[in-house]
């Protein structure tokens, strides 16, 4: 099986599940479809031979973020299909704007394609975990530490926001 076939299969899975995420009525089903979509995007990263990002993507997105989503859905007891519908005009406007944005962006990129120069293979190793770790901890040391501060602040913020407020007597 050639790489192109694998790419087409993975892309079909990605786009179909992303669309089903939005279309399906039950939020639990949406979350499950989103997990499948994330896994197929991790497959794309593996096709690029970007092992580190594929691993991190599965751990962070399919692991942490989706568990958070599912936990919130179950906490709010939203797994029923009683969502009121939007007006038909709003839905139509959403569909039309989707089509227009898609059309314009695709047209722009098709026009821009001859400008992009051809792909050159240098043959050097640039994306193994070893090289990425060196780049991350040498050139991007300060942003890396700031990312940890950001995660700490997000954790404190989430705890503070979801804490039950004391009722005023």
């Amino acid at each position: 099986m050639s790489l192109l076939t694998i790419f087409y299969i993975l892309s079909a899975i990605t786009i179909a599940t992303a669309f089903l995420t939005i279309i399906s009525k039950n939020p639990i089903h949406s979350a499950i479809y989103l997990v499948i979509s994330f896994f197929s995007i991790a497959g794309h990263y593996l096709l690029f031979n970007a092992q580190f990002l594929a691993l991190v993507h599965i751990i962070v997105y399919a692991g942490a973020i989706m568990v958070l989503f599912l936990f919130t859905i179950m906490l709010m007891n939203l797994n029923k299909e009683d969502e009121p519908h939007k007006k038909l005009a709003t839905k139509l406007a959403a569909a039309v704007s989707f089509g227009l944005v898609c059309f314009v962006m695709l047209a722009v990129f098709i026009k821009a394609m001859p400008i992009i120069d051809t792909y050159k293979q240098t043959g050097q190793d640039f994306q193994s975990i070893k090289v990425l770790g060196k780049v991350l901890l040498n050139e991007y040391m300060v942003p890396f530490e700031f990312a940890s501060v950001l995660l700490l602040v997000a954790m404190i913020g989430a705890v503070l926001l979801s804490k039950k407020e004391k009722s005023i007597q």
Partner: protein
Amino acid sequence: MQNILQQIGIENYIYLSVILFCIGIFGVLYRRNAIIMFMSIEIMLNAVNLLFVAFSTFHQDAQGQVFVFFSMAVAAAEVAVGLAILVSIFRNLSSIDIDNLKNLKG
């Protein structure tokens, strides 16, 4: 596996990312359930990350992948805070329909 972009072509990845991003836009406009809107935002972030990795391979440069790593950290923080906000909205309104949030409308 080394010559992936010679076999597939960068343009296919650009088209895939554009379609994924537009699906995300469609989700934000189409649904009124705030959780599904969050999921659409995640889809949009993923589309951009995919294009970052594609161009990182195209230019044979690790910096694009480092940037994707940071954007994943930001996405994780965003989801944690956003879901906490949703939980507190749900406590106050007992629904997460965004059309109910019009107290500021005057």
